[in-house]
């Protein structure tokens, strides 16, 4: 187990190294010249050249990369040329709202998805099962901005049950968390359905039935715990979808997290911020995958460690 953890950790670090090389290469290929952007429109070629020298942009690719990697290691994601502030500081101030939204939407999608999947598995091959699976299909086929605007229109504009947007209270969290939660639930519902169906076919459940336990006891004590755990371990793999979703959902609901920061950066073509968020998201995804891989064998000892 220890060797497995160590190996997965090294693999994750290597992937992060690769991620940093790719993001740097993208920055390097960028047609926009940062030196010119900083110097402003009226700058003479000499001024631009001197800023370029100051920034080290006249050095060869690998030296620039080493420089960049060194700065990343000390937590420096560069400077926004538009907002003229450190990207790291910007992301850190925007992180708490995003984490709140993350907790809210993961709780929603788990609650909805597990209940839907469980119902579908227990009512297998009935019309209830089919309707639930169609709903879960609609969930993976609807873009977040369409559902977001729909919820906003019905529950904030028409019914005025919830505020139109903003951040600070639980009521403001409901609609954005529902948007991400409803769409994510489809995925969990399918996983939960097949996981529970797998468990229900196992011999030990037949034994439990045979020794006279009631259906409810067999389900609650013997089937569900084993069916739910592998699904919950999937949260780690779901982080990529979440990081993509927040850009849209936060901009629709005016939620001041890193998704909205990214959206604002897109409008102003503020590449350092977009890059910073991409890098942070990639780290979150690698971490999520690592946790999923480390948790899975703890939950299910039958999983072979590679």
């Amino acid at each position, binding site marked *: 187990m220890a060797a497995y953890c160590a190996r997965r950790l090294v693999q994750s670090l290597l992937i992060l190294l690769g*991620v940093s090389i790719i993001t740097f290469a993208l920055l390097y290929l960028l047609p926009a010249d940062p030196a010119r952007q900083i110097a402003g429109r009226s700058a003479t070629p000499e001024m631009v050249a001197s800023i370029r020298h100051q920034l080290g942009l006249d050095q060869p690719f690998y030296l620039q990369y080493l420089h960049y990697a060194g700065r990343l290691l000390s937590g420096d994601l560069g400077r926004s040329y538009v907002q003229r502030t450190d990207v790291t500081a910007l992301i850190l101030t925007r992180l708490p709202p995003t984490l709140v939204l993350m907790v809210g939407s993961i709780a929603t999608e788990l609650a909805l998805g597990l209940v839907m999947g469980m119902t579908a598995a227990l009512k297998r091959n009935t019309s209830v099962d089919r309707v639930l699976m169609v709903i879960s299909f609609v969930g993976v086929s609807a873009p977040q901005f369409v559902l977001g*605007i729909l919820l906003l229109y019905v529950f904030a504009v028409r019914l005025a049950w919830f505020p139109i947007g903003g951040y600070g209270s639980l009521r403001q969290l409901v609609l954005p968390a529902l948007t991400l939660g409803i769409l994510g639930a489809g995925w969990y519902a399918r996983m939960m359905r097949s996981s529970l169906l797998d468990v229900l076919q196992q011999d030990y459940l037949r034994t439990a039935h045979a020794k006279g336990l009631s259906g409810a006891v067999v389900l609650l004590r013997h089937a569900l715990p084993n069916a739910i755990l592998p699904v919950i371990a999937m949260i780690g793999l779901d982080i990529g979808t979440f990081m993509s979703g927040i850009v849209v959902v936060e901009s629709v609901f005016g939620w001041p997290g890193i998704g909205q920061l990214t959206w604002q950066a*897109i409008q102003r073509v503020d590449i350092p911020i977009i890059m910073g968020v991409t890098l942070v998201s990639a780290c979150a995804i690698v971490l999520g995958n690592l946790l999923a891989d480390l948790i899975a064998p703890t939950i299910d000892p039958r999983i072979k460690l590679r």
Partner: protein
Amino acid sequence: MRVLRELFHRKLALLGLIVIVLTVGVALAAPEVVPHDPTEQLFDGLTLEGAPLPPGGTYWLGTDLLGRDLFSRLIYGARTSLLIGIVANGLAVTLGAAIGVIAGYVGGWVATALMRFTDLMMAFPALLLAIVLAAVFSPSLWVVALVIAMVSWVQVARVIYAETQALARREFVEAERAMGAGRLRILWHHILPHLVSTLLVWGTLGISTTVLLEATLSFLGIGVQPPTPSWGNIIFENQTYFGSAPWLVFLPGIAIVALALAFNLVGDALRDILDPMQRGQH
């Protein structure tokens, strides 16, 4: 043929197929179908106060903020969505299949390098990577398709890699090799034919993903650029008025969901039909 017949027997898949055929037909015949030029700002397309016209009346799905006919824009938007969906997904499946087949068949350090690169790409959130690429290259229709393809091939590569690897170890491939068949001959006659069904499934399911990605990029303003209509950018242009003119957001929204859902339903049915291992299991 068997596949088509089985597809017709599944109600949901048939429904999806009908939606796809209708959308393709309408998109192909767009110039004949539309009542107005989708980019023309009609002289009677706005109310006296300058607000868009609601559905019903002369323009039967209403008009947008600039007084353009929404129905015509939706029809031309279908063209954009399908074009990008099919081109981007075609590129993604081709690239993913090529990488997967090469890695799975050649093996060794080539496989290690290719699959580690694939793992690396998995670490990027698709939408954010697409945003970065769209910001780096100025977006046109083809660039958007290319950007979407560049972030969508990864899944295909992984699946095809696993399948090719498994196939290359099977006895019938072993037997061919023993009889002296060349590597390319084995690849062409004995491995690729077995990958066709997987590619068909991903070719269908993937279109749904690329249609959604295009809509999202266009909604963020970095996908297809106005005045070319796309379902995503119709919503992007009109979203500030969704309170007073909800049809401008919801009609294109319904179109996006219907098309993505249709490809998902057909793709899922195809997977069921083509994968005999899974049949009857759940």
